[in-house]
């Protein structure tokens, strides 16, 4: 790959970290939800009635531990698949307020759908080079 501006070649060493960076940040954001559900005012209201009423501590624990595992790349594919399913259910359950558009950011099904799609990408790729999966030498 030729650089259009040759002087920008200095950021080539960052290239290999791109995927791991996105995976880490996504996992970290998912963890925040787990912390919120476990220790603060977080509820499972965003699931609607899709599972009946799942226990908030179980969902919170999954989000906290699962988010950490995605961030570190441990059992990346199965955990990302579960997280993707979780946020897909949330996307289906979130009510669309009258007057708000599905496409607009905010408290619409848009955001859970983005997370679902990102988790799907993690299922496709797995942990990648900078992950505990790779370090342990075993992965799903």
């Amino acid at each position: 790959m030729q650089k259009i501006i040759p002087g920008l070649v200095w950021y080539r060493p960052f290239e290999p970290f791109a995927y791991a960076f996105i995976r880490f940040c996504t996992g970290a954001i998912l963890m925040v939800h787990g912390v919120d559900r476990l220790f603060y005012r977080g509820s499972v209201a965003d699931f609607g009635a899709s599972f009946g009423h799942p226990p908030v501590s179980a969902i919170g624990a999954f989000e906290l531990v699962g988010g950490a595992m995605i961030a570190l790349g441990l059992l990346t594919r199965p955990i990302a698949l579960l997280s993707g399913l979780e946020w897909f259910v949330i996307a289906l359950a979130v009510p669309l307020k009258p007057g708000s558009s599905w496409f607009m950011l905010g408290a619409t099904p848009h955001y859970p759908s983005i997370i679902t799609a990102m988790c799907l990408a993690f299922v496709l790729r797995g942990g990648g080079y900078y992950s505990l999966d790779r370090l342990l030498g075993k992965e799903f």
Partner: protein
Amino acid sequence: MIDEAGTVDESRLIIPQLAGIYRQAASFGYVVLRVVIALVFLPAGIDKMFLGGAAGVAGAIAKLGFAPPLVWAWIVAGLEFFGAILLALGLFTRPVAFAFAVELTVIAVGIMAPRGGFFWTSGGAEVALLLEAAMIGFVFGGGGRYSVDRLIGREF
């Protein structure tokens, strides 16, 4: 080179039978991320570009202190429309992703955090932060294997 599709080694897989699927799938992870994140912005771009949305956001932009607001509104409109298309195609990936990262910083800090704190259920900043994390990743990684950047063999 960007970490996109490492070798898939059967002996490392807990279920070795999946190796064939993984060989097919692994190289698509990054491009799925890039295209999905890009297309998130296209509806907002179309709205601002063609449906009068640019004038609508000028008020919010003025409140942030960017002057003149209407010019910035059209810059944002152009970024969200043309930038989304370029990013989805993977053409000029890095500068486009960088522009989005800057925009999303302003949105997260200036608009979403004051409005709704962190959580998306109250319209908070995590939405912009997640997208921004992905954009910074694209600034690192560039277009990757399936991109117009790679096709023409030149990139920023």
